[in-house]
């Protein structure tokens, strides 16, 4: 079968961009998902690197006709196995689709799927504009960021990826190319199919281009570090800051041990006194941010916080952000899985306390940190506690749902949280999702096993 498919693919894409040898396809089989929970990839797949949406359309038509599974792949920075090809088939890597243009008058960038976040930021900055959210690793690609509705630390003020995507070009599993939305701030023409595809994790279509809203030149920013002696004091400060009308770019909760570990990992040093910290990034004019900083200082001291530190220089702000962002990398080696449970922001303290109780119950070490103002908490289960993994996961998810939350705020369902999606989502919602999937992808060729488990649906449903 493979040989025949390769021959057909060679009619669509230049030979050099079709990979079949084991050593060449190896780096396309995994993403950043922790090894203990990572789905097992097939070794029998073909990696294709098309250069435009027409080629993708022809590949999908072929796959649909032959019923071959197709796995779209971006930067491979996902944490839930979304890009992992689990069945024999075709991996479509969008890496060659790198065209990008900035429309200054409309404050818009139009980027092809393979443009990385780092490349987008660079082009936008050169155009004297800005793209304020920072939805993940800078090696992540636009297609993946849009398909997974990425979040990140800077969602407090500006929102997540969804808030910035105004239009997409998408190739459907049946091969049609659709243009949805556009350079528009208002658009009520029919059902919003674009927002249905955003966050569908590469199961409804392959996003090939995105129209992205930009902002005027980057604002002045200031990073504050608010140290506290207890988690309770720190997390109870968060709603007070937000209800006083202060809208930070980011508001992160971190603990001393993790910041020290991450700093060491980077060859830096974290030497601020205090057990836990809120890291607050403010943006606006210089006067605005200092005014907000003064108010935060006041709130912090009323809540029992310690002396607040400030980073004004860009290099110092970057160092703090880098240390915060690398907690994940520093923990990765010892980590079995990372959760991104999300609750209503005012409940984040309760969730953190419940996770501590679960850790105590199972004598496990469960480090927590996260995007405090979004109610989005990252908890790690470590490899040393792998024997209790299922129980810990299940209890953390139960606690989250009981607090009015969801099992994922930004990483998505991918291939490793499908069982839990079926457990915690209402049967009617699952039924509607399956209906939608079938409408878009009647033969279930696109990223099968991702988000929904069509073939095993019956089994999963009876299991509940």
């Amino acid at each position, binding site marked *: 079968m493979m040989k025949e498919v390769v021959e057909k693919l060679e009619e669509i894409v230049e030979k050099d961009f079709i990979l079949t040898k084991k050593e060449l396809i190896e780096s396309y089989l995994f993403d950043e998902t922790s090894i203990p929970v990572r789905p097992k990839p097939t070794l029998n797949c073909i990696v294709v690197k098309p250069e435009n949406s027409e080629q993708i359309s022809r590949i999908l038509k072929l796959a649909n006709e032959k019923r071959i599974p197709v796995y779209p792949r971006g930067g491979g920075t996902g944490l839930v196995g979304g890009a992992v090809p689990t069945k024999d088939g075709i991996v479509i890597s969008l890496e060659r689709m790198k065209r990008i243009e900035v429309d200054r008058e409309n404050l818009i960038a139009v980027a092809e799927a393979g443009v990385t976040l780092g490349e987008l930021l660079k082009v936008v900055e050169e155009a004297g504009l800005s793209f304020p959210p920072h939805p993940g690793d800078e090696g992540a690609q636009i297609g993946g960021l849009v398909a997974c509705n990425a979040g990140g630390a800077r969602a407090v003020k500006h929102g997540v990826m969804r808030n910035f995507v105004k239009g997409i070009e998408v190739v459907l599993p049946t091969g049609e190319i659709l243009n949805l939305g556009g350079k528009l701030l208002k658009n009520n023409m029919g059902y919003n199919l674009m927002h249905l595809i955003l966050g569908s994790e590469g199961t409804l279509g392959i996003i090939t281009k995105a129209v992205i809203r930009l902002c005027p030149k980057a604002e002045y920013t200031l990073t504050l570090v608010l140290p506290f002696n207890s988690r309770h004091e720190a997390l109870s400060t968060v709603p007070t800051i937000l209800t006083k009308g202060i809208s930070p770019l980011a508001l992160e909760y971190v603990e001393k041990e993790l910041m020290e570990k991450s700093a060491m990992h980077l060859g830096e040093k974290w030497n601020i006194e205090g057990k836990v910290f809120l890291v607050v990034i403010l943006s606006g004019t210089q006067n605005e941010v200092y005014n907000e900083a*003064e108010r935060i200082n006041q709130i912090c001291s009323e809540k029992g916080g310690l*002396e*607040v530190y400030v980073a004004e220089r860009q*290099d110092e702000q970057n160092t703090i952000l880098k240390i915060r962002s690398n907690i994940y990398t520093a923990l990765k080696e010892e980590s079995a899985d990372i959760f991104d449970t999300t609750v209503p922001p005012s409940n984040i303290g309760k969730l953190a306390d419940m996770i501590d109780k679960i850790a105590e119950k199972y004598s496990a070490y469960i480090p927590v940190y996260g995007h405090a103002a979004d109610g989005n908490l990252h908890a790690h289960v470590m490899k040393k506690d792998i024997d209790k993994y299922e129980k810990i996961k299940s209890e953390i998810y139960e606690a989250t749902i009981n607090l009015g939350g969801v099992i994922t705020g930004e990483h998505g369902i991918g291939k490793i949280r499908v069982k839990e999606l079926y457990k915690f989502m209402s049967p009617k919602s699952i039924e509607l999702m399956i209906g939608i999937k079938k409408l878009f992808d009647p033969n279930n060729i696109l990223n099968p096993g991702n988000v929904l488990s069509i073939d095993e649906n019956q089994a999963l449903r009876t299991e509940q």
Partner: protein
Amino acid sequence: MSLKIVVLIKQVPDITRVKFDAERGRIDRSSAEAEINPFDLNALEAAVQVKEKLGGTVVAISMGPQNAAVALRDALARGADEAILLEDNKFAGADTLATSYTLAGAIKKLGNFDIIFCGEKTVDGDTGQVGAEVAEFLQVPHLYYVSKVKEVKEDKIVVVSEMEEASYVVECEFPVLVSVTKDVNKPRLPTLREKLKAMKAEIKIWHAENLTDIINLSNVGYAGSPTVVSKVVVPKEKGREGKVFKEINEGIKVVLEELAKKGLI
């Protein structure tokens, strides 16, 4: 006894963002935020650590335009007790010699001092000359490329000085000028309280006329600068070149020839 410590500060553009005007061979200073030269932060941190240990005062001095006061305010937030800005049109266009002469004049005016700390170089000029020249004008010894302050007492300092392939441990009595590298410490963040206080603090401004009893004005600024920059060339980035050989031996021959041409084999 309390020590009198001076720190030399220069305001520079954020070098990670600044754009270079290749045609005119100049830094486009408007393209990036101005801030304290990163090496000077290490100098300031070293000074503050000495003060914390033995007591004393830290005076930050900078020569520059009016807006260099921003850098001095940052120095105050990070532990300097006093800040002096040497600002005058007559000081403009100074090379390292005229700059050092002016800074040394200001330090003389301050009176006796024990230690002067400075960064090993500035990220915009990159000469690394000003510290040593200041020391010469003041006729005090200087310790350069200091990567560690091993010991500091009321009358002397012991440092590790990096000299390419050797590290020297040097002991020196005060007064002395110490030029530090990035390795000497990790500058701490200022507290928000100090930062806000510094925004309202007084920066002393000394004009040329305040220094005429000490310095000769014909030696300052452009007039006092013997350095002539005849041309600035920005090296162009060279792309990689590839050659494909059908015959492996032919390829190897060319590689060997190229290596021999460069004197590598």
